[in-house]
């Protein structure tokens, strides 16, 4: 194999790559916040009494978790205009990522809520907590603290999966890579560099989530988050 690697060429395109990194970060952070918020709401609906709400949430979670993210993006970006909803590629990516992440976080947080023992809630009642206080301090926060590592793994997976958004022409990091590759013809070098950037982003995101865990839930949860690898949600 006689091939000379030329990484120097890529430096000329640092603005494109930086713009791509910035877009990936923005999309990931926005979808994590929105998806997690939706997940908390849906998981709460899910844990109420059986009824139409529970059936709808279950159906939503199952449909999203059993279809590929790429196809979900296609439906949002190419399919929605047929129904009269036209969105830009970036908005479509954000919608797709939020819908996807919401389903996974619902499932994870639901598992957390189910692990809260009934006696905890009774103890809350005995202490004279209002229903809202019980919900917040006895159910949701401990539930999230329990599943926080799994939740974070899902967030990291979502950040990595955002690379797929380049297929609907969202100008994030993978799209920047494709652009630089088409300009410089240094395919292998470009993708090695971009892969390393993704790796760094994943490690940075994991570290940041561990810090947030430390701030929200204390040291024990944060340590589990820092060492946990992305778990596979089944």
């Amino acid at each position, binding site marked *: 194999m006689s091939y000379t690697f030329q990484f120097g060429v890529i430096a000329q395109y640092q603005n494109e790559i930086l713009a791509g990194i910035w877009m990936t970060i923005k999309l990931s952070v926005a979808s994590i916040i929105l998806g997690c918020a939706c997940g908390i709401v849906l998981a709460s609906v899910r844990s109420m009494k059986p009824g139409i709400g529970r059936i709808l949430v279950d159906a939503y979670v199952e449909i999203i*978790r*059993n279809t*590929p993210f*790429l*196809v979900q993006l296609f439906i949002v970006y*190419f399919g929605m205009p047929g129904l009269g909803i036209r969105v830009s590629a970036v908005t479509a990516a954000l919608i797709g990522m939020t819908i996807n992440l919401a389903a996974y976080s619902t499932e994870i947080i639901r598992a957390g809520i189910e692990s809260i023992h009934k006696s905890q809630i009774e103890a809350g009642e005995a202490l004279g907590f209002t229903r809202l206080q019980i919900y917040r301090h006895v159910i949701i926060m401990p539930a999230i603290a329990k599943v926080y590592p799994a939740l974070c793994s899902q967030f990291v997976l979502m950040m990595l999966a955002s690379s797929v958004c380049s*297929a609907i022409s969202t100008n994030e990091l993978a799209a920047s890579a494709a652009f630089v590759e088409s300009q410089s013809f240094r395919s292998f070098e470009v993708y090695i560099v971009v892969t390393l950037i993704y*790796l760094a982003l994943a490690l940075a995101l994991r570290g940041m989530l561990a810090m947030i865990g430390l701030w929200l839930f204390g040291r024990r949860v944060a340590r589990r988050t820092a060492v946990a690898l992305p778990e596979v949600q089944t």
Partner: protein
Amino acid sequence: MILRTFGFSEFGFLVSALLWTVVLTIIALSGGGIVGFFIALARTSTHKWLRIVAATYIQIIQGIPVLMILFLSYYGLSLAGLQLPPLVAAGASMTIYASGYLAEIWRGCIQSVPKQQWEASESLAMTRTQQYRYVILPQALRISLPSTVGFAVQVVKNTSITSIIGFVELARAGQLINNATFQPFRVFIAVAALYFVVCYPLSQLSRWLERRLHARSHR
């Protein structure tokens, strides 16, 4: 120009493309299973360096997007002077992807076999190979079933990413049909439904295995 509409023959094309999704999934799971098995063994080995190398491999694979693995093997293989059909590039990268995740799943299963099992088999003067073969792996296999089947669902879904390098599987077939019919909503809903038909039974199977495993261990 007359546009085609999304009818039976188009749906038939999607179904035949689903076959390639299944083929790719089987390649990824068997290839990734073999590689992942040895990495899981290395990850639980008594040699410190083997453990570090295996852990680094897992960390890297789980820290980069599948799309990047795909591009790297696609361009990497052609750099090496190999002109290979997309199926090989797609199969190779899905194998690498699956190996990184399966190794980590199985490491967890091997380590969840109680320590006493190791001690008991050691006291029976078993060699390490015998310990793995007769004591540890049969138990780890049972524990690993639910999560392995669950991961198969992820693999089926992630094969859709190979459409980006032009491998014609279900998602790519959907794009092709869409280009001919311009009925994106119908086409992609049909594509999603086909994925669902494959993935949902697997998800349910994984859940059922999980329940059965728990029922046994709590008896």
